């Protein structure tokens, strides 16, 4: 039993400790403490300025070569796990990577600032930023949300004046708001009601509040790290990421569901074949689901990567690259030959 005097002494000790901590402790919102700094706070990061924001972005290869635009998942993911595909630059392509608005290491914005029109315009301006000519061919390679984003662009802009020559779509979730609702019904909850994963996420709410982007992004990482069992990703080879964008991850789907969307209305007019690559094991996106999405395009093919889940694009890079190279040859997007004709 603690003596009354000891108990009485607790209050000032705790008070002193807490008072000291308010000045000497780390700032959870400080750049680089919980999560890496974005382009706003780290001047060493490659960036572009488009459409009133600053995006973490970089490109590899000859700027005059056919452009491949890599689109990460999420919303709110980043391109870290797609970087192995910069090897396409060695093939003779100009490979563009960017973290979407509010995602990865790009600048953060308040939730109220997001709009659908703005998000699509970001995409268009990224293309223009990296374009060396108005006739430079473009192929999109998008994963998950990135595959949806690519489809959204194609539905709105078609082949963009003859420039978009194809798309490789890795496991898109939905092309309509109804499809997104159905997808979320399959996806959520990602863990069982009594699972340790859900328990850990909910219990962590007591320790930190997502009242700032850094804290929100860190807490999003706590949710993302355990993975979703129904996606059947390889636990021994998890996809890396830099920093989730918690605000945009919540806001963009909410906008989509609230406003409704249908990105299939003009897909049949797209004049090029679209390649769908899917992981065999992902329960959330079975073959029939991907075939249904592919059917909206005039020409498409669905290839299943055996023994892989949702993150097949990370886990099976050589297999993906093989399919991508064959597809680029099929749609006639030839790499730029280097001097001496050596690719």
């Amino acid at each position, binding site marked *: *039993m*603690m003596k009354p005097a000891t*108990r009485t002494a*607790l209050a000032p*000790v*705790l008070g002193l*400790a*807490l008072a*000291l*901590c*308010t*000045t*000497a*402790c*780390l*700032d*959870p919102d400080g750049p*680089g*403490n*919980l*999560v*890496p700094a974005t382009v706003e706070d780290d001047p060493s990061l490659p960036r572009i300025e488009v459409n009133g924001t600053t995006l973490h972005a970089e490109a590899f290869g000859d700027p005059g070569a056919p452009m491949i635009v890599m689109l990460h998942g999420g919303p709110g993911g980043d391109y870290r796990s797609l970087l192995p595909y910069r090897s396409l630059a060695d093939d003779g392509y100009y490979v563009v990577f960017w973290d979407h608005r509010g995602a990865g290491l790009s600048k953060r914005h308040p939730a109220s600032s997001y709009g659908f029109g703005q998000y699509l315009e970001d995409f268009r301006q990224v293309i223009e930023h990296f374009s060396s000519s108005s006739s430079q061919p473009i192929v999109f390679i998008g994963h998950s949300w990135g595959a949806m984003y690519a489809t959204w662009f194609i539905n709105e802009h078609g082949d963009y004046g003859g420039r978009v020559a194809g798309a490789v779509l890795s496991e898109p979730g939905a092309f309509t708001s109804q499809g997104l609702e159905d997808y979320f019904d399959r996806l959520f909850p990602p863990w069982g*009601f*009594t*699972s*340790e*994963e*859900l*328990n*850990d*996420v*909910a*219990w*962590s*709410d*007591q*320790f*930190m*509040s*997502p*009242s700032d982007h850094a*804290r929100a992004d*860190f807490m999003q*990482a*706590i949710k993302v*790290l*355990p993975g979703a069992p129904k996606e059947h990703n390889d636990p021994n080879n*998890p996809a*890396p*990421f*830099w*920093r989730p964008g918690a605000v945009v991850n919540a806001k963009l789907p909410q906008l989509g569901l609230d406003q409704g969307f249908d990105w299939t209305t003009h897909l049949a007019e797209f004049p090029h074949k679209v390649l769908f690559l899917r992981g065999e094991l992902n329960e959330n996106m079975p073959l029939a689901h991907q075939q249904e999405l592919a059917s909206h395009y005039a020409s498409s093919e669905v290839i299943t990567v055996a023994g892989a889940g949702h993150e097949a694009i990370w886990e099976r890079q050589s297999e993906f690259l093989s399919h991508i190279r064959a597809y680029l040859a099929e749609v006639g997007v030839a790499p730029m030959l280097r001097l001496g004709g050596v690719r």
Partner: protein
Amino acid sequence: MRRLGTAASVLLALAAATKAPAQELNLANTSTARPRIVEARTGLDHALLGEVGYRHVLAWQDRQVFVGGAVAVPWARADLGDYRVRATVGLPLGTEHWKLAGWLSPTLRGTQNAASRMTALGVDSRLTGGYYARRWFVAGEVGLDWVATTHIAFRDAYRTRVYAGAKDGWYRLPGGTAYAGLHGGVSFSSFDLVLRAGHPRTTALEQQTVPFYLTAGVNVTLPP
């Protein structure tokens, strides 16, 4: 700084272990003549949890003062890395049946998740008010479960897969939980059967992962 924080954590845990709270008591029946009350709770409060506690009724001038403590652990999966330890002092005021009470609970929490191990120090401040009869009671509650500082030790999985430069240490003013709800119960013999439900938000009033709390429990007043 870390040593000071750790020392404070240990002191707080010791305090909670020697005295022990849930604030769902039938204040019409509490008495300094039977000052020892043990309690047990289960339900959903940030997680599926179980909680046990002890409360002692003291006399202060002509009023009752409650001191006590409780230990809660999530029970969905046995994980000793997740816990909550509280010491509580409470002071009720009012008439025979209508009472308003203020409660202060220094709180120590721990958790292990996929990204980190976290330990938090803070204070839960709660105001309860309601009607208390011999056989039943019902009361409203509002509170702020404020976290003064959280120590974070990042796990290797986070450093290798996400951010190698994450800084271990005590983080100041990381947030907390604001909440409002109702509780009540029925009383017979030496027992209160109690229910508590409400809605939690972050201290900035954002939604939390589990948007409600709902617990049930029992208080047992021990013989003198």
